Every structure is written in structure tokens, then in C-alpha cells.
């Protein structure tokens, strides 16, 4: 699967009567990604998260288009193709166990309960998450383990496009190494895009790194 963005523009309107000004988050972003790993770096507010959300079909852009294998893909199609791991783990049901959360989101992504559980167990082992942690209520997990559950949710879809926003956030050294391995493996069958504020990790994970500033891709390094 090759995913290509052509001239993506996203302007967030200011809330009505707020006196604020619209926020231009993406200003004509163009990029291409095929199976492999690409990194996205840039200062805070440069548009990394907005770009990943637009490619995931979570956001709809104001202009430009995304092509999947050369065919224009709307937000609905992108949600079928892409798995997205947000930077913030506050996207789970806190009173359910981690395993139940993964079963629920797996079902929404089309996975049956057995497949979701098997993939969750395998990924948990890879990320150094003990089985007991999977049965623990989500709000009783540590920050790092919440991040691992968020990563498992995205990886377990085995989507053709994998979008990881700050995936190393909160992980210990061993888990970071395991995640680097998982990203490399995913890159064999998926187009993986990940953002990070760690230049070292980004370069270890990604074969090429795009730099964003002011809502534009301003550079690319292999």
C-alpha cells in the first residue's frame, strides 16, 4: 500500500464569538509513504499530530487529498486502512480492564474476540507487559503500561497504514527497544509513520525522517 498526501490544508476555526483567530495547522502538506518506516519531526505545534490524524481519517482536511495506491481515499476509507495510536492514552474506558478495552476496540476494527485476545497477548509479551497487567483495570495501570495498551490497540489491527504519535512516550528502556523491533517488523507489510521529539529514537526507527515547520514538510533526510 502506498499512501500519498497532496497539498493537505487544515485550518481549525476559532470558536464562535471567542475573539480568537483560526489556527492553520497544515499548509499544503505533501508526502508519500509505502511499506517501510518514515519519521516525522518538528517543534511543538508544527502540525505533526494534525497530519497523522488527517491520514488516519480522524480529521477531515479543508483542501488537498490523500491517495491510497493512487486512488483518492476519503476519511471513511482511511479509517479502514489506517490504525492510529494517539499521543494521549486518555482514549480508553478507565473502569474496564486493559484486555476488555482491547477486545472492544478490536471488535470495532473488525477483529473477533479470539483474534483480538491472541494478538493482545502476543504484543503484550513483546512489550514486556505481564498477563496480569492485561486483566488490570485500565485506570490502575502505570502511565507507561497505558501507553503499551494504546500501542497494542494500534498494532493488533495489522493495518496497511500504521500511524504512531509519540509512541515512545513513557516507555522504559527495554520496552523502547522492543517497540523499535515491532515498528521494524510492521514496516515490512505496512506504511508506518511515526512522530517523536527524540531525534535519536526517530532515526533509529525510521529509514527516512520528514521535518515539519508551520504546517509544511520543510525537509527530508534519509
Amino acid at each position, binding site marked *: 500500500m502506498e499512501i500519498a498526501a497532496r497539498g493537505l490544508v*487544515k485550518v*481549525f*476555526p476559532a470558536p464562535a464569538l471567542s475573539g480568537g483567530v483560526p489556527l492553520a*495547522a497544515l499548509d499544503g502538506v505533501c508526502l508519500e509513504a509505502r511499506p517501510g518506516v518514515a519519521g516525522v519531526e518538528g517543534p511543538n505545534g508544527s502540525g505533526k499530530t*494534525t497530519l497523522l490524524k488527517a491520514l*488516519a*481519517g*480522524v*480529521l*477531515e482536511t*479543508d483542501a488537498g487529498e490523500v491517495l491510497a495506491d493512487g486512488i483518492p481515499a476519503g*476519511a*471513511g476509507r482511511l*479509517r*479502514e486502512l489506517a490504525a*492510529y495510536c*494517539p499521543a*494521549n492514552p*486518555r*482514549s*480508553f*474506558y*478507565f*473502569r*474496564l480492564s486493559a484486555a*476488555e478495552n482491547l*477486545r*472492544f*476496540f478490536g*471488535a*470495532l*476494527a*473488525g477483529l473477533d474476540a479470539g483474534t483480538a485476545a491472541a494478538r493482545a497477548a502476543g504484543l503484550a509479551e513483546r512489550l514486556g507487559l505481564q498477563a496480569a497487567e492485561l486483566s488490570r483495570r485500565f485506570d490502575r495501570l502505570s502511565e507507561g503500561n497505558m501507553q503499551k495498551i494504546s500501542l497494542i490497540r494500534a498494532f493488533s489491527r495489522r493495518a496497511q497504514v500504521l500511524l504512531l504519535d509519540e509512541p515512545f512516550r513513557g516507555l522504559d528502556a527495554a520496552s523502547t527497544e522492543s517497540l523499535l523491533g515491532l515498528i521494524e517488523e510492521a514496516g515490512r507489510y505496512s506504511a508506518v509513520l511515526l512522530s517523536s521529539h527524540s531525534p535519536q529514537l526517530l532515526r533509529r526507527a525510521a529509514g527516512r525522517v520528514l521535518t515539519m515547520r508551520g504546517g509544511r514538510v520543510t525537509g527530508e533526510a534519509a
Partner: protein
Amino acid sequence: MSAARAVAAFVRRDFLQERSYRLSFSLGAAATLANLAVFYFIGRLFGGELAPGLKPYGTDYFPYVFVSLAFFGYIGTGAGSYSGRLRQEQTQGTLEAALSTPLGTPSFLAALTAWNFLFATFELAVYALAGVFLFGLRFPAADWPAAALAFLLSAACFAALGIISSCFVMLFKRGNPLAWVLNNFEGLLGGVYFPVTVLPGWLLAVSRLLPVTYAVRAFQLAVNGGAGVRAIGGDLLKLAAFDLVLLPASVWLFGLSVRRARRTGTLGEY
């Protein structure tokens, strides 16, 4: 993904969440019974003689209000639960995550409140058991097929109103004028606590614009008055007309409001 799989996933999730709040469930059931008891004693205080407005229904006050509350409790689930659930998803931060999946709008809507309808069915059964065994109610004249038809048409209509109401939550997060109308005026103008014939003329005219008026009247006439499908055909047709317009409109409007939230980047906001 299939709507059935989404419904099953949401029901399981909501059951597990509700189970984690055990006290809330027991208090809710106790409140329902206390509410019924209030109307039971009002009925005993006034009896049937002071209620000429109830003559068409062939019953006295307590059976009338009991049937209304049981019926309105269920169809009100449709009116209130969509916006409630959506708001809950927003504040938990899970709405954006759920809508980041391939789940389509109709499946999402079918699944979002499936648990509420399941629970409302259980409450309806509790109402029925309490009515029969605790308060000694009997409905010998009831035309159950006609009542079932009125029930289905009404439930669909109120679910559509609930979906439209949830569009306000999707777009504005807080401040829901339709929910305000549904919560504050449906009971007053729809004949839930008393027949609308006791309202003054100008309020009666307003009540004729509301589907709840036809819903409650048709159901009451079928259950308490023994009216058949033909006898309540006018009300059923009006409910069907409301359904025909409101159901597709509600799904379309909800899709539009989700799209708007995706465009403004407010899907994850609360």
C-alpha cells in the same frame, strides 16, 4: 464491520461498566418503585370519580399513570440516551477513539444505546411485575397487538428525536435545546401524567404537534381501553409519518454533525 458485532461489543462494554457501579443499579431500581408508590397513593386518594378525562380509557388514575410511566420510561430511553451516551464518550475521551475505527454511522448509532434499550426492557419487566404483584393491576381489556404496534412506532420515533438531540452534543458539547424540550415539556404536554384533554385550548394545540401525544394516547387506549389497531389507526398513522420523516433525517443529521466535528477538529473535545 457488521452492526451486530458493534452492538454486541457496546452491550458487553456497557454491561461491564455498569457492573462496576453496583450501588447505582440498586438505587435506580428502588427509585423506580418509590416513584410508582407515589402515584399509587395519589390514585387511592382521589379514586376514579374525580377523573372524567379518563373515561375514554376506561380506567382510573393509577392504572393510567402506571401504563404511561412504564411506556414513557421505555420510549424516553430513545429520547435521552443518545445524547447522554455521546456526552459520556466525549468526557471519557473515548469518542474520538471509537470513531477512529471503520465503524459507520448507522452501526455506531445502533450500538451506542443498545445497552440502554436492553436495560429499559428489563425495567419495563420490573414495572410489569410490580404492577401485577405489588399493586394488583390487571389489564383485562388490553389489545396487546395494537399496543405492541403503538409501542414500536413510538420507540422508533423517540429514538430518532434522541439522535437529533445528540447532534447538538456532537456540535456544541453542552447546551441541548431539544433535550430541554423533551425533558421539560413532553411529560406536561404529552399526556403522560394526565390526559391532554384537561389542558387549555392553546396548550392542547401545542400538544397536537408532539409525537408523544399520539404515542401515549394510542398506547393507553390499547392497553386500558382495549382499542384495536383500527380504533387507534389515526394515531398510528401519525406516528408512522413522524417515523418516516424523522428516522432518515436523524441518521443523516448525525452523519453531518460527525463530519462537521471532524472538519473543525472538535471530535475529541468536551
